[in-house]
């Protein structure tokens, strides 16, 4: 006999009612909770979020981008409107796990699991994401993702990327031990206004550089308002190294990460500038 009872609410209203009645366990794609040792609750009620249609949607053409929490990573990677408006999120999704993982893993699960090396979260933080939650008890509240500690038993229902916070260009780059199905040792999400060879506003967030995604203000300042040229890029790389030294002093990874950040650092600049990474400008700076 099993101690787990499965609840399959048909919609969000029914889900909120269930949450008001007592604690629930959640499963969506299962790619984290089904791994041995992380586990599902041993008893009580379990809600399968992968079967709540209202939780799986991407609305990328309105004022804000809205994404249902049970939207799969594969769907994020494939959505043309999302790719046009926030390429960094589509790029991060496409580099997350394997085909099999992307087909199941969800954006809400990536946030709730809160792995320091999560690929989607740096992009979401850089885009000033806000979350709709249902708290135990059934109240629905909106919270900023950056700095959030998810209340125990809370359910993420929707991710909002405010249109007023989106910048014209964005890119994501990741450093792992291999190209595919690799846990990020370092990742970067860059949002910027870039026009006519000059950077405007810049927001830069790193993952796997501490327990939480980390905004890198020194590096942002090295690009903001600057013309894309070798001097700017050298300043950018120096600032990135300084950011790593400030983020993980004394850590075993410091000696290599302070240098390795140059790779994804140049890659995200090439991405927002629409240039190939083997363009002479980058070759000159990297040499």
């Amino acid at each position, binding site marked *: 006999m*099993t101690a*787990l*009872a*499965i609840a399959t609410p048909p919609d969000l209203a029914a889900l909120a009612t269930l949450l008001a009645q007592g604690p629930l366990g959640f*499963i969506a*794609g*299962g*790619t984290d909770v*089904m*791994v*041995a040792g992380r586990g*599902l609750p041993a008893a009580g009620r*379990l809600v*399968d979020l*992968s*079967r709540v249609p209202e939780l799986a949607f991407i609305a990328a053409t309105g004022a804000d981008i809205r994404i249902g929490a049970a939207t799969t990573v*594969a769907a994020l990677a494939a959505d043309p409107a999302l790719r046009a408006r926030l390429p960094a999120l589509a790029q991060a999704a496409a580099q997350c*796990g*394997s*085909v*099999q*993982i992307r*087909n*199941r893993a969800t954006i809400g699960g990536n946030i709730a699991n809160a792995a320091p090396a999560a690929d989607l979260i740096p992009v979401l933080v850089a885009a000033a994401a806000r979350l709709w939650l249902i708290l135990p008890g059934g109240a629905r509240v909106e919270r900023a993702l950056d700095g959030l500690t998810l209340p125990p038993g809370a359910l993420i229902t929707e991710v909002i990327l405010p249109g007023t916070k989106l910048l014209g260009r964005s890119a994501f780059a990741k450093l792992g031990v291999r*190209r*595919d*199905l690799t846990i990020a040792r370092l990742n970067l999400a860059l949002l910027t206004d870039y026009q006519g060879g000059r950077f405007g506003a810049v927001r830069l967030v790193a993952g796997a550089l501490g327990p939480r995604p980390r905004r890198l203000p020194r590096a942002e300042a090295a690009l903001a308002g600057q013309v894309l040229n070798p001097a700017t890029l050298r300043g950018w790389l120096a600032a990135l190294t300084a950011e790593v030294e400030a983020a993980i002093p004394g850590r075993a990874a410091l000696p290599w990460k302070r240098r390795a950040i140059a790779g994804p650092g140049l890659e995200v600049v090439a991405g927002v500038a629409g240039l190939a990474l083997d363009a002479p400008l980058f070759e000159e700076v990297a040499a």
Partner: protein
Amino acid sequence: MLISLMVNGKVRRVEAAPEARLSAVLRAGLGLTGLKEGCCEGECGACTVLLDGQAVNSCLVAACQVEGRRIETVEGLDPSGLPQAFVDAGAIQCGFCTPGMVMAAEALLRSDPDPAPDTIRHALAGNICRCTGFVAIVQAVALEAGRRRGRAA
């Protein structure tokens, strides 16, 4: 709980704990032992099956999530298709990864009938082989893709 699902075109009913791995349900509950359980972490891909046509790690799908859904395993594939191409290309040594490899390859070929070698490598990145190596496996998928295009022409 009693779960009813469509496996390789037939409706099957099986008793399983809600949190049981789909891989275990298919192997122990339904006798479909083609798929293998390797890591149970979504790293090795040996348990790959198609869920409503999409490649998934069946070790990470809970039994309660597949009620009424469509599963395809290696037993449901035409043996003269990808399995034969793997034999012809010498892409099998111990065979443990092969059922998962061919299911991931099947999902790829349904969406992309003429994949470049790099596309094949990317699509099979979630499947790990520890003995033959990946060169012959990529060749096997390209071989089957060519055979399908030849038949379609």
